[in-house]
């Protein structure tokens, strides 16, 4: 559960671009939104554990497809453990009589009608691709998902 909760942050969009800045980012930004996340996370978990396992950093890095040097592992491990411990504190809150929140409340539905609209600056997207050969995006050969 602890490592799972951590993954929420680690795999948050954009984190693979610069893991270092992102991880440090985590420590600064303890906003109420994250509390909400924790609650939904609880709803998610199949079994509630009272104490959280210490994070396995090499495994976390692997699942997020980022590579860390041994030095970095050493540097981040205690920081990440701190985050996990912080979740551990949240785990202690008694939610026995609290109905699980599926999602944070938002105003209104926020849906759109099914009306097509072409994105006007497709060229910019294509130009930014690391490898493109009209009309396909080129990627290293992949045959299996695992």
């Amino acid at each position, binding site marked *: 559960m602890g490592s*799972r909760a951590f*993954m*929420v942050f680690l*795999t*948050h*969009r*954009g984190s*693979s*671009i610069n893991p270092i800045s992102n991880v440090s980012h985590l420590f600064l930004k303890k906003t109420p*939104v994250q509390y909400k*996340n924790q609650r*939904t*996370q609880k*709803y*998610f978990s199949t079994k509630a554990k009272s104490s959280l396992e210490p994070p396995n950093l090499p495994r976390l890095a692997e*699942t997020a*497809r980022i590579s860390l040097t041994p030095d970095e592992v050493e540097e981040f491990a205690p920081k990440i453990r701190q985050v996990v411990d912080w979740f551990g504190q949240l785990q202690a809150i008694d939610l026995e009589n609290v109905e699980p929140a*599926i*999602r*944070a409340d*938002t105003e209104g*539905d*926020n*849906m*759109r*009608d*099914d*009306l*097509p*609209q*072409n*994105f006007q600056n*497709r060229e910019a*997207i*294509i130009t930014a691709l690391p*490898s493109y*050969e009209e*009309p*396909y*995006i*080129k*990627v*290293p*050969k*992949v*045959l*299996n*998902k*695992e």
Partner: protein
Amino acid sequence: MALTFFRGIKTCPLIHFPSAYFARKNGYFYCSMGSTNTQFATQEKQQSADLKTSQKTHKKSADKLLKDYEAVIGIETHVQLHTLTKAFCSCPYSYGAQPNTSICPVCMGLPGALPVLNSKVIEYAVKVGLALNCKLSLNSKFDRKQYFYPDLPKGYQISQFDVPIASGGCIDVDLPVEFGGGHRKFGITRVHMEEDAGKLLHTGNGNYSQVDLNRAGVPLLEIVSEPDMRTGIEAAEYAAELQRLVRYLGVSNGNMQEGSLRCDVNISIRPTGQQEFGTKVEIKNLNSFSSVSRAIDFEISRQVLLHSQGQADQIVQETRLWEEGAQKTITMRKKEGLSDYRYFPEPDLPGVALTEEYVDSIRDSLPELPETKRRRYEKMGLSMQDVLFLTNDLNVAEFFDATIGKGADIKLAANWIMGDIAAYMKNEKLSINEIKLTPQELGDLIASIKGGTISGKIGKEILFELVAKGGTVQGLIKDKDLVQIVDLSEIEKMVDKVLADNPEQLEKYRGGKTRLQGYFAGQVMKESKGKANPKLLNQILLEKLNAKG
């Protein structure tokens, strides 16, 4: 391990044509896929001929083996919703468009871009959920499923995990008459919404793959069945019924060749009577109902054989691919434990809340579903064969309904549609909406024949004209002067003429060669240009032939 396994196949004559044990079943798709009917029938014939010579001795023992085991089959189906735009952005989607033209920062997963849900996705999901008799979650949400693959630009798929929009339903199926028929009810575990990934092409040479992201973000419904199916036929019919259902509902074109309806089959076997499930194997790459059926039958044979040879441990949890060319399944990847998708609630999207009023309004707008239609046609007195044919294609069913709505005789309308009209559509490769004949005119044609205005033979001629060129029955009858001749004196005149023109035959007839009556009848009909009422014609002809002198 794989090696020993293949050697096992080679040395065992039983498995050379595992699907051949089910050869009878290969003819199935005639009901669901009328146009391939003859093709399958021939294949079947050839296959069973081959069988008889090479497999005669083994067939008996194989059948016996299969009887000792029961297959447990569940199906995961992905249905592509035919919305105009993608699920979370306004990019239009059209199959076959130039690659990578329908993309934007949202479906490309660019930083800062935020998804906004297409309201049609909810509408279609609720429609399918209700049509599958599911319980709807009035409050559900989207979740992120993380995996890394180049067809998924964001690094995660927006899906639904622990709270699917619909769950706990069922679907009714009528098995094709050729396979013994029968009615089945299969459970539906859940229906959830998610987005499609892009398309990957693995070019033959070169060490790279090509990606087309037009499809990335296109809305899908994943429909998961309970493991309620036991044979390839049941599974294929389940898939065919889902196709009919989404087409009737108008939420998807259900086209398997385009990948708008994709089936992944989970299959395991167990000795008859055993409660626990065996090890399950997943089969992918099934792009027709016949491949669903044949892949399952192959897989059952393969697993039963391993089981019966004491090699049950060689049945491992894995994903296998159906090879259409070789008609067999091959290992694609072995599962190394459960994948860790690290699901969590999608933070960029609000929850999905449905109101009772909304659900009720959609329930009220549901069209007549295939199952209801079948039961209705059955009650009208049509045979199951007719019922299955007419309800298979919604357009055909609507044409039929419109025709009988004009007061046409039910059985006659069914016969015309299933006979000459279906044959014409097949030859010209047209759908029933593309032919020039309207239900109004078919109704008129049937009434004109029934009322005696035109003969059945003329009716057929008119039909082909109507189907190919259009026009009205009354107009054609008038233009071509086709009204049936029921005037006794007129027919008498023609009979007299024919008798006078054929003195020799007349003599032979009167000498005892009464078979010649048919010849005379034909001549008179020819004389009348096919318009003489056959009953009156024969009546008068007989009188005159037998009149002495």
